[in-house]
């Protein structure tokens, strides 16, 4: 029978939740890296035992951890003696965990409208290649994308991204980070990323050059120019692998879709109680079924009326239904952050999300009903799931 492995990043460590295909009884391991912020963990699609984790701290900076045995043991890649020995036999300069912007780094817009130099803070998101377990993309704060092709031993910035009007990007309240990286499974040269508060971007040449794909986004309260090409606070984008030209977006306000790889976006918020929120995801087997978690407003980061409701649309947006069975319907004031929702590929599709209150909820029936897998973790920053044979 298949199994699922849910990878949970929290403010105070990582947790791994495992269950068989019924998804009723769960084993919880962790905390791994206790006391550290784990913004994200993700497994390699081509080698599920290979998992990468972003471990960071305001005191000690950025560490990348790697497991080659499905999360049982971890090591920071590139820190073994053999990794550090140069061809001449002398130790070479350490590169592990080192994220350095390429070339003249320049400046971006600061909160007060002045220009501010780029400063590396942490890795928000790790996206392993669909075909090579040693190749991973990393989304950084301040906004940049890095790539490793040696399993995380060394990282190189794809600096062309900053050429996409980087001087006009501005941090949102949570910082200015590349928080979403989507790889096109049908076109190895195409990739999408999203940045708060800059917008969504696409490369069609493997990351050398990027262009903003924000036409149709409206940010009338945040941007003086309602049709601005960059500066939009995109919270999350998602796609179904069978249709990589169709993207769904949860923006600061607004839920949108594009059917042409981001060239034009259309609002599909429809009958949502509020179209503010963070995560958005797509059902594993139904490309027009999507999920969001509406949040009251940009000032009130908790669910409307204290009711935790996932909303599902089976028509690619506009028509939404609340999913409440098993979720708290009173006195619930948690948030669900942007990287904290995911789907497995079992039948029926499993859906998972984590909250800032430390709960991880799972549904084994596409969202019809929910159960808490764990209730009292630290604030959840990210949730990913691996479906294992």
């Amino acid at each position, binding site marked *: 029978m298949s199994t699922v492995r849910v990878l949970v990043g929290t403010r105070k460590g990582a947790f791994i939740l495992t269950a068989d295909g019924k998804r009723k009884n769960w084993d919880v391991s962790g905390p791994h890296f206790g*006391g*550290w912020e784990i913004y994200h963990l993700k497994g390699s699609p081509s080698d599920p035992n290979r998992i990468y984790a972003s471990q960071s*701290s*305001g*005191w*000690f*900076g*950025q*560490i990348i951890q790697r497991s080659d045995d499905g999360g049982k043991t971890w090591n*920071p890649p*590139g*820190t073994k003696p053999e*990794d*550090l020995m140069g061809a001449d036999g002398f*130790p070479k300069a*350490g590169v*592990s*965990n*080192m994220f*350095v912007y390429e070339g003249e780094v320049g400046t971006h817009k600061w909160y007060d409208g002045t220009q501010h130099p780029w400063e590396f803070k942490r890795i928000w998101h790790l996206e392993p290649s669909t075909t090579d377990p040693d190749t991973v993309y990393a989304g950084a704060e301040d906004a940049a994308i890095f790539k490793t092709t040696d399993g995380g031993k060394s990282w190189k910035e794809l600096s062309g991204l900053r050429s996409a009007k980087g001087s006009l990007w501005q941090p949102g309240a949570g910082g200015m980070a590349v928080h979403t990286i989507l790889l096109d499974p049908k076109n190895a040269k195409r990739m999408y990323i999203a940045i708060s508060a800059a917008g969504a971007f696409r490369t069609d040449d493997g990351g050398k050059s990027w262009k903003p794909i924000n036409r149709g986004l409206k940010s009338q309260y945040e941007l003086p120019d309602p049709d601005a090409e960059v500066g939009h606070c995109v919270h999350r984008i998602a796609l179904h692998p069978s249709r990589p030209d169709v993207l769904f977006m949860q923006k600061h306000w607004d839920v949108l879709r594009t059917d042409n790889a981001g060239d034009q976006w259309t609002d599909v918020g429809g009958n949502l109680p509020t179209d503010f929120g963070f995560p958005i995801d797509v059902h594993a087997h139904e490309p027009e079924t999507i999920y969001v978690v509406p949040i009251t407003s940009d000032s009130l980061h908790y669910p409307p009326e204290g009711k935790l409701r996932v909303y599902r649309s089976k028509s690619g947006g506009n028509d939404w239904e609340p999913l409440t069975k098993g979720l708290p319907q009173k006195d619930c004031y948690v948030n669900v952050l942007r990287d904290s929702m995911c789907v497995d590929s079992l039948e029926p599709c499993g859906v998972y999300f984590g909250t800032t209150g430390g709960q991880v909820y799972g549904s084994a029936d596409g969202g019809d009903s929910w159960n808490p897998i764990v209730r009292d973790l630290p604030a959840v920053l990210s949730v990913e799931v691996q479906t294992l044979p």
Partner: protein
Amino acid sequence: MIRVLLPFHLRNLARVDGEVQLELAGPVTPAAIVDAIEARYPVLRGTIRDHVTKKRRPMLRFFACEEDWSLEPPDTVLPEAVATGKEPFMIIGAIAGG
């Protein structure tokens, strides 16, 4: 023999218990001590000081002989008591948060 105390999280990262003991050939300075720590425990590169600029990370402090050496130049020679191991060189996470 020089004794170095690392903060809890860096001891875990380096997988060491208790004090780290070092031998240095040259002058005993904060920079030389951190150089030796990073050489022995490469995973700590970037955690005590910046990878590139080599500046001390803002929320770490260096203490020895009941004095704060954090703001002294990194090539400042430390007291003889540190060089002989009578007193430890302490790398401490700054108190922050609520």
